[in-house]
C-alpha cells in the first residue's frame, strides 16, 4: 500500500510546511509531495468544491520565453504546439499540447502572454524533457529561461477570489484564463485565473523564498485548507480534465483526446506544428478512437487499465477512474472506438474480470464554475 521511492527526491519550497501540517508525503514525479493531510481526501475534496483549497504545485515546470532580435516567441512556439499562440493578447492564457511527428502528445501545458514574454507551465514529470525539446527547437528564436525553483500555488474553489482579493484586490476583476503581475505580501508574483479542479480559482507563481510565507498567509484565512494530490486527482477527474501519462500521451492525438477545441482554427488549415498531417487527416475523416466519459452502475470502481467491452467484444480501455466525492459514485474516462463513442452507448467495464454495466456520458461530470466575467 506504500509507493516505492526511486532515486533522490526533490522538495518544493513548501516541504517543511507540509510536514508541519501533518501531510502524508509520497514520491511523485521525482518530488516528495503531500498526497493528503490528516482530514483525508474526501474532506479536502468537498472543502475545495464548497470553500477554498490551497495546493502546492511547485513541482510543475515554469519556463519563460523571450524573443531574440528579429523573432517573435509566439511564431516560434507555434512550431511546437497546435494552438493559436500568435493571437494570444497580453494577459491571456491558453491550454495547448507539445505534439510529436505522429500527432501524439509529448506534454500538455498552459501558455500565458505577459506582453514581453510567454510563460509556460508544464507537467512535473515531463519538465526536463520539455526543456530539452524547447532548447533544441527554439534556441535560435528565443531566450529560454527555466524557472524550476519558483513556487506555484493553486488557490481553488468558490471562495478563492474572496480570499486572494484581501491580499491583492485587483485579482477580483480577472477573468478565467487571464494572467497579471500582482504583488502579494511584498513579493512580485504572476497570477492566472485558472486551475485543475473545474472550480473558479487562481494559480500563483511565486519567487522561491516567498512561497512559504505566502502559503502560510493564505492558510491563515479561515476559508482556506491545504489540499493534497489525492483530492487534486479526484477534482480534476470530476471536471473531465486529462492527466498526462494516463488520459493523454505520445500515442493519443489531440483529436482522439477530444481536445480539438484547443487547436487554433487557422492552424487546423495551415498546420505548421509537429504531426499536423496526422491531426488534419483525423479532423477531416474522424479519429479511430475518442476519449469519452463513463458512468458505471453500482458502486464498483473501474480504474485505469480496465477494459471496455460491448457484448463481450473489447472496444476500449479506461484511462482514469475513481470515486467522485461530489456525486457519491464511481466515474471514469477512457478511449473507445469512434463508432461506439456516442453518448448513451451502453458498455461494460471489466473490473477484476467482472463486467460492470456503464454508459458513455458527456463530460464534465461536475459542472465547471469558471469566472468568465
Amino acid at each position, binding site marked *: *500500500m*506504500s509507493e516505492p521511492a526511486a532515486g533522490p527526491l526533490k522538495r518544493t519550497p513548501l516541504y517543511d510546511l507540509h510536514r508541519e501540517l501533518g501531510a*502524508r508525503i509520497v514520491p511523485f514525479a521525482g518530488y516528495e509531495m503531500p*498526497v*493528503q493531510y490528516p482530514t*483525508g*481526501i*474526501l474532506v479536502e*475534496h468537498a472543502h475545495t468544491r464548497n470553500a477554498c483549497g490551497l495546493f502546492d504545485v511547485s513541482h510543475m515546470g515554469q519556463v519563460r520565453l523571450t524573443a531574440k532580435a528579429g523573432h517573435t516567441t509566439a511564431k516560434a512556439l507555434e512550431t511546437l504546439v497546435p494552438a493559436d499562440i500568435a493571437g494570444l493578447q497580453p494577459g491571456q492564457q491558453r491550454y495547448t499540447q507539445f505534439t510529436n511527428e505522429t500527432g501524439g502528445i509529448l506534454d500538455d501545458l498552459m501558455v500565458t502572454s505577459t506582453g514581453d514574454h510567454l510563460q509556460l507551465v508544464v507537467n512535473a514529470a515531463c519538465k526536463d524533457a520539455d526543456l530539452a525539446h524547447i532548447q533544441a527547437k527554439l534556441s535560435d528564436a528565443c531566450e529560454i529561461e527555466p524557472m524550476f525553483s519558483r513556487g506555484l500555488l493553486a488557490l481553488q474553489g468558490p471562495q478563492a477570489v474572496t480570499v486572494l482579493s484581501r491580499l491583492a484586490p485587483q485579482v477580483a476583476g480577472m477573468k478565467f484564463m487571464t494572467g497579471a503581475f500582482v504583488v502579494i505580501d511584498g513579493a512580485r508574483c504572476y497570477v492566472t485565473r485558472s486551475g485543475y479542479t473545474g472550480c473558479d480559482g487562481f494559480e500563483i507563481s511565486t519567487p522561491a523564498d516567498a512561497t512559504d510565507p505566502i502559503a502560510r498567509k493564505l492558510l491563515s484565512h479561515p476559508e482556506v485548507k491545504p489540499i493534497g494530490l*489525492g*483530492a487534486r*486527482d*479526484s477534482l480534476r477527474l470530476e471536471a473531465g480534465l486529462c492527466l498526462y501519462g494516463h488520459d493523454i500521451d505520445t500515442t493519443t492525438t489531440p483529436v482522439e483526446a477530444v481536445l480539438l477545441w484547443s487547436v487554433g482554427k487557422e492552424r487546423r488549415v495551415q498546420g505548421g506544428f509537429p504531426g499536423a498531417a496526422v491531426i488534419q487527416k483525423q479532423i477531416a475523416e474522424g479519429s479511430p478512437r475518442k476519449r469519452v466519459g463513463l458512468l458505471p452502475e453500482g*458502486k*464498483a*470502481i473501474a*480504474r485505469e487499465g480496465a477494459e471496455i467491452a460491448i457484448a463481450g467484444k473489447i472496444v476500449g480501455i479506461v484511462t482514469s477512474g*475513481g*470515486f467522485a*466525492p461530489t456525486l457519491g459514485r*464511481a466515474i471514469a474516462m477512457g478511449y473507445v472506438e469512434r463508432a461506439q463513442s456516442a453518448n448513451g452507448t451502453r458498455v461494460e467495464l471489466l473490473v*477484476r474480470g467482472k463486467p460492470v454495466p456503464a454508459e458513455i456520458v458527456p463530460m464534465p461530470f461536475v459542472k465547471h464554475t469558471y469566472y468568465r466575467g
Partner: protein
Amino acid sequence: MADVRYSEEHEWIRVEGDTGTIGITQYAQEQLGDVVFVEVPAAGRKVAKGEAVAVVESVKAASDIYAPVSGEVIEANAALADTPGDVNTEPMGKGWFFKVKMSDKGDLAGLMDEAAYAAFVKSLG
C-alpha cells in the same frame, strides 16, 4: 476472551471457537485513506489462506484483502455497502469484513499477537 491475531498484510482475525471475524487494522485504514467501497466475499464461499478474497477501495486505489486462514465464509458485513467509512472509523469494530468457519486452526500459528504486530508496524517506520 476472544483471541485476536494479525497478518503481515495488516488483517486482523478475532477467534471465537472455530469462527474467525476478519477485518483490516488501524494501520491499514490509515495507509488506505478514505474507504469508499468494499467488496466482500459471499457466504458459502470456500477460501484458502493467502487467497485474495475481498477488495477495499479508497479514493486513491484498490487493495486486495487476503484470507488469513482457510475455511468457509459464513457471513459478510452487508452494512459496508452503505457505510464503507466504518472501515476508517472503526476498523476493528463496525468495519469488519467477513466471518469464516476455520477449517484448520493451525493456520493461526503463523499469525502475530498484538505485541508482535505492534512491533511489526513500528519496524515499517
